[in-house]
Structures are given as C-alpha cells and as structure tokens.
C-alpha cells in the first residue's frame, strides 16, 4: 500500500478530499447532549431531542427545523425502502406459489415475452440468463405499478425463475425509477420475502425470494447485475 509515488499521490488526494468533505463538522457547534459531563444521566437520544424542540412550539420551529435537517449539503438522508420494493415483495408472494399459472407468458416464448414487456414498459428489457447460478426462466408477466407517470398508468414487469428444487425467485423491473443516482445494492425484508434491489439509471430492479438464503440471493443478484451491465 502506498508504495509507489503514484499511490502516495492518490492517497494524499483521497485524504484531501476526505478533509474537504468532513472537516466542516469540526466547526459545527457541539450539541448540548454531547457536552453534558455525565451524559449517563442525561441520555437524550436524538429523537427525544427533536421531539423536545418540536414541543417547544412555534417559537422553536426554526430551531427544530435546524435540528432535524442540519446535515451537510449534498448528502442524502438514509434511503427508505422504496415503494416499488414493497410491491415487488408482494408480487413475489402472490405469484411465486402458483402451480398452474405462475406466469402469463412462458419461457418457451421468451423472445415474445421480452419484446412485449419492453414495449409496454417503454424500455428495452432483458431477461437475464441465470443457469450459471442454478436458475432457469419460467416466464413473466405484466403488472400495474402504483405510481403513474404524467397521468398515464405505469406498468412493471416480473420475470420468474426456478431452480431444480422448485424454489422460485422473481425479478421485478420498473421504469422511471426516481432517485436514479443511487446504484448500490440494497437489501430489505418484507415479511418473509427477502429482496435485493438497485436502481440503474431509469430502471429499478428488485430480486425477491422467500425460500433461499440472503447469500444465495445476493449471488443471483450479482449475476443479474453483471448480465444487465456487461
């Protein structure tokens, strides 16, 4: 590490960037709850502090706003689980146990399925091939999205996959995903459905399963991502 001048320079640049990013904290006033000498007996949690400010009423309104919203500019708050992830989990729970009608269009008509869903969602979709991680395509279906775009009803696509043991996972794809700056994998659990989700430019993806472990699901999510972003 940092053995070459090049690496030294990069580490130094990183250090400068980190200072630029976090040094403003040094100039912030230290909150009262941290200045109390024996904080053990004055254990104010941030929520309690915020609630207290609010309780002071209108006069303290500005302060409360400051207290609740003071974070350095440009850094988004911790993201909540987006609505589409919850809907993906529900769709998984509804359709994956289906024995006779798990999908609208089967994998035997894969080309038609993908073309149809791409047309309805208004974006070129692909059904990733997951044989390498033990799953094969069962088919897919069109679903309504809760949110509509510019008054027009929006649609989402669900692809279903199954392994040899019959365990199913579903890949839920929606267009016009908001907050498309975020591209990290995230994990959420909705009831007993585990979901890995990510947003890639305008497309939001949620990969759901109720029956396999998080590690296995993550492995599949990686495979999906790799295929969609070669």
């Amino acid at each position: 590490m940092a053995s070459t001048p090049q690496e030294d320079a990069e580490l130094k640049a990183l250090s400068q960037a980190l200072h630029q990013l976090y040094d403003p904290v040094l100039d912030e006033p230290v909150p009262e709850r941290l200045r109390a000498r024996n904080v053990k007996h004055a254990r104010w949690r941030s929520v309690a502090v915020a609630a207290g400010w609010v309780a002071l009423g209108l006069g303290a309104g500005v302060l409360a706003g400051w207290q609740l919203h003071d974070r350095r500019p440009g850094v988004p708050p911790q993201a909540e689980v987006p609505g589409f992830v919850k809907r993906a989990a529900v769709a998984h729970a509804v359709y994956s146990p289906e024995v006779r009608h798990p999908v609208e269009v089967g994998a035997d008509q894969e080309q038609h399925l993908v073309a149809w869903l791409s047309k309805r969602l208004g974006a070129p979709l692909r059904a990733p091939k997951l044989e390498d991680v033990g799953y094969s395509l069962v088919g897919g279906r069109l679903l309504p999205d809760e949110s509509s775009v510019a008054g027009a009803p929006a649609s989402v696509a669900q692809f279903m996959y199954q392994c040899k043991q019959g365990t199913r996972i579903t890949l839920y794809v929606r267009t016009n995903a908001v907050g498309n700056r975020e591209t990290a994998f995230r994990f959420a659990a909705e009831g007993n459905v585990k979901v890995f989700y990510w947003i890639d430019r305008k497309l939001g993806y949620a990969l759901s399963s109720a029956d396999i472990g998080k590690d296995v699901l993550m492995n599949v999510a990686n495979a999906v991502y790799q295929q969609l972003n070669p």
Partner: protein
Amino acid sequence: MSDAEDIVVLIPRLRRYARALAGEHNAADDLVQDTLERAWSKLHLYRRGTDLRAWLFTVMHNVYVNQRRAARNNVPLDEDMPELAQPARETDTLVLRDLDAAIRRLAPEQREVLLLVALEDMSYGEAAEALGVPIGTVMSRLSRGWEKLRAMLSGLPAGGKQLKIVK
C-alpha cells in the same frame, strides 16, 4: 488540563470521525454520545501519558462494533453489500457526495482503517492499536478498501490522474 477537559476538546474530532464512519448526522452523534459515556465511565482505565485521542478512538471503535452487532438483524442492511461496477461517468470529476456515498458502501472494517489513515492521519501502527488488530491487517484492509473505493469511483482513472474535487 485534566483528562476530562482534554476529552471535551477532542469532541469535535470524534464527531468528524463518527460522521465519516456512521454517515447520518444523528447516528453519528449517537455514536459519539455512547463513546463519551463509555469514556467517562472507563476513564480510570486510561493510562495517563499515553495518547488520549488514540484511546478515545479505540473506545469509539468498540462502541461502533457493538452497535453494528446489535443492528445486524435489522433491515434494511447496507453493510457488506458488494460494490457494483458503476457505469462509466461522463467526466473524471469526483464529486464529493459520490465519495461520501462510496465510503458508505465500503465494508465497515475497511472504512474504519481508511478513515483513520486518510482522515485522521494515523500511522498504520496507530490505526492497528486503535482497532486492536495486527498492523498487517490494517495494511491489507487499507489496500482492499482503497481498491474498492477506486473501483466504485469510476471517475478515478485506474492508472492515473489525481482526484479532482468540485464542490
């Protein structure tokens, strides 16, 4: 100055590190608060004459590890997520908030080492002591964290240019 006064003086430094480590404003101050509580109650364990700041960082590290252990079963989880290959950016400009987001996505162990060395200017030895791990572990975590960070920030050319910062 007494140890207590020294600790108070160091609070802004603890807050800065906590903000970088824990991210969100209130979570970071919670981490600082828990660290201070523990430091006050364990102050008799601090050996005078040794580096108080290093000792406080050790306390914070332990609190942080405990907090994460307690939170491990909560969802959504962001930790230990694999990094994604970001689509190539249009510019090679590294925006600060991208760096913050990338730091967030490092494994916590790597994030700690990276911040102690690059933000807190600790030597590998000091970081090793603060984290209670061998120096070789510090170096390998730093190396891996740095590689991951580099991969995430595709604005950072693999072979070359320095980070360019825009506000």
